[in-house]
């Protein structure tokens, strides 16, 4: 199904950010790892250029590099996931 891989990768990035926010205390995640997970999403060709999904992912990447709180990054990634869902239901 189109968009499935993208949804999985975005969810992986969200899980990483939530692990930082929730502090399970069983892993040591760096912003670089989170940024890599978001870049993995952006590399997918199924995420169209100029789409809202790409826009939100870009914002999330900026938020990570700017040192924004984990909840802010998570919120932006949820927005990307929502936009992906909208684009899938609209296509």
């Amino acid at each position, binding site marked *: 199904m189109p968009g499935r891989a993208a949804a999985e990768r975005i*969810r*992986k990035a*969200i*899980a*990483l950010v*939530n*692990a930082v*926010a*929730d*502090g*399970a*205390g*069983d*892993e040591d995640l760096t912003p670089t790892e989170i940024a890599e997970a978001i870049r993995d999403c952006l590399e997918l060709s199924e995420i169209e250029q100029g789409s809202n999904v790409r826009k939100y992912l870009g914002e999330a990447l900026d938020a990570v590099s700017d040192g924004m*709180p984990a*909840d*802010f990054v*998570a*919120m932006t990634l*949820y927005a990307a996931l929502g936009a992906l869902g909208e684009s899938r239901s609209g296509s």
Partner: protein
Amino acid sequence: MKSAEGRGRTLDEAVDAALIELGESRRNVDVRVMSESPGETVVEVTVIDHSVAPVIGTAAPANGKAETARSLVEGLLKHMGVRAQVTVRTAADPITIDISGRDLGALIGWRGETLRALQSVTNVMLGKQLAEGERVIVDVERYRQRREHTVREIALRAARQVKMTGDAITLDAMQAFERRAIHLALQDDPDVGSSSIGEEPDRRVVVGPRKPETS
């Protein structure tokens, strides 16, 4: 608060015994393991008192932050067109906002995804009102609390099995707050410990015999 002691050969049996005595269902209680041996498990089961939480309009005045968070969540739900009661959980640290009402499954979402998103938005909107590292927890119909109880029970069951067999057990993939609940449940166990393996979102807790400390 109503509570009862339950005894049984297994954790499930002990909890069930206490639930029968209380006339309550599992979702309405908090379980604390008093003692555990191969032959008998003793638990204390306490009924969660929903009535002590303040209702809309009568929120706890002692905590301004909690009230701000409550009214913020209430406003978000209103914009989403969700009719629900929003309350501040009393004596909860960190601040916990409870949402209750009918048909709120959509607000929880797949594996709690929508609930988690709502919590992220709430924390971002509260922003500077929260101290560094301080966060607000949002719970719908005590979903999160019930999940924590469930994984704690899973952890204790796994620990018992590890003690009997000596073999480590790998649990299903869990979210960070669930893994945290397991680590906390087993942290004082002298014989069994927990660690995590794998990468998000497939990170799993391994419950195994605690290795003797090397000096």
